[in-house]
């Protein structure tokens, strides 16, 4: 763009202003238009309330649910499920990935099992987990844990194995012990890859949560949705969908802020 306006003194600022307008104003335009059409459709009766509640009704319901404490308390239950499931899944993934990455023996023992596990979609295990763990909190947490092990394991393992051998040689030549090599060279080198795995794990955990919460829950977002379905409260369903979306965004934000802290040494691609 700048290449086109060389030689003209007034063009660059104007070009930049138009560009930023397109970027910040334009991107909101179509979603807002869609909301407007949706509201219009609901008001004119084109979209019946039992099919889809109007945006204004959804916002009203949201405010009501927040004020009554119904949404925060159920959100907390769902959040706890994700947190515990992730804690277990990520810890197992970390442990197995470290072992398989750092030791040939452990790789031989662990990797074939993990590859077999990879072929089974976590959600397909729901019936089996219900048989094993009943319909309480345990199968929900177990499903999330089971689904999040693999992305963490695979990315950490690949990250460790992908470490630049020249850097390892340099560390060896300065007399670093095996443990020091792992700490100073191997683990930092594997970190970017591990963070990618963590991001996958977070989005998988929310996906599994949605399904797991349909199992006879008595609290949580899934319980709210199931109830709303029985009473055809589409406004509540949409509110819960919004909360799921916000959870996903929050998870992404969490990993991205982790990345900017942990990977400050990387020259920013965006800035250059």
């Amino acid at each position, binding site marked *: 763009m700048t290449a086109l306006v060389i030689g003209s003194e007034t063009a660059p600022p104007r070009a930049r202003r138009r560009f930023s307008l397109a970027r910040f104003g334009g991107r909101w335009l179509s979603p807002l238009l869609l909301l407007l059409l949706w509201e219009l459709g609901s008001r004119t009766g084109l979209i019946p309330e039992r099919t889809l509640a109007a945006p204004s009704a959804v916002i009203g319901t949201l405010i009501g649910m927040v004020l009554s404490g119904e949404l925060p308390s159920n959100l907390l239950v769902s959040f706890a499920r994700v947190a515990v499931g992730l804690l277990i899944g990520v810890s197992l993934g970390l442990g197995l990935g470290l072992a398989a990455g750092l030791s040939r023996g452990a790789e031989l023992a662990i990797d074939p099992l993990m590859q077999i596990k990879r072929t089974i979609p976590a959600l397909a295990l729901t019936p089996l987990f219900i048989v094993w763990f009943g319909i309480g909190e345990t199968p929900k947490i177990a499903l999330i844990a089971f689904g999040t092990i693999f992305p963490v394991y695979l990315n950490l393992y690949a990250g460790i194995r992908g470490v630049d051998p020249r*850097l390892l040689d340099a*560390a060896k*030549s300065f007399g*670093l012990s095996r443990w020091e090599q792992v700490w100073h060279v191997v683990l930092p080198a594997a970190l970017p890859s591990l963070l990618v795995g963590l991001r996958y794990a977070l989005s998988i955990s929310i996906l599994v949560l949605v399904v797991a919460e349909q199992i006879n829950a008595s609290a949580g977002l899934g319980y709210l949705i199931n109830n709303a379905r029985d009473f055809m409260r589409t406004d509540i369903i949409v509110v819960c969908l919004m909360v799921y979306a916000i959870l996903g965004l929050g998870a992404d934000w969490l990993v991205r802020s982790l990345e900017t802290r942990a990977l400050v*040494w990387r020259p920013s691609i965006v800035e250059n």
Partner: protein
Amino acid sequence: MDARLGFSTIDSAASPSHPEPVVRLHDFVRSFGANRIIDGLNLEIAPGEFIALLGRSGSGKTTLLRTLAGLDDAGAQDVEVPDSRAVVFQDARLLPWKPVWKNVALGLKGGDIRGRAESALKEVGLGHRLDAWPLTLSGGEAQRAALARALVREPQLLLLDEPFAALDALTRYRMHDLVLSLWRTHKPAVLIVTHDVEEAIALADRVLVLDKGRIVAEERIHAARGERAGLAGRLREQLLSHLGGDHHGEGVLPFARQAEAAE
């Protein structure tokens, strides 16, 4: 050992000023499969001696350097290298996730690690980039940092593996001066692996030519550095003829052309 080629090897241990060599390889052999990379090599390096090792690609330079650096296990062979040694590689090999001073401090033991790293970096002229991230350094700066990382260990043996090959000519000359001044201050034995005959002549006390895993020629340069311009022409031709040999033609061409152009 290379009588058939007509060159003699001066035994550096025999020279009175260097009684105990810091490096001693006797009849060293290294092979990968049926491929003999190093074939009965003898080498002694005296304390504080500056040696340049010339050789074409595939002559075994890198293998020899890896052995001296302790990166490859020498097995039960007759190899003596000092415990305190340090390497500067062609690519600086700084850890990108550690700021420059922590790279220099990597693996250091003892007190005031930050202070020692800082003074080493100041010595190579990088006092202003202590906390910089390695990926933001220029090629020359990265090599300076790698030099500081090697010297902060006060090594008895400093190994330089084509350290300036990737730098532009001006930076390379500056680095030559820096290496010489650091060598004069710290007095390590230095082995620089290079394919640049000029560089070898400008820096070393002794130039070795490696070919097919053996040292095929050796030149001791007595003239002071800076007064070698007169010698350079003759030496260069001599070294180039060794590098060329008589039965492996094409590998020599670039050197030969360069030599002709310079005359």
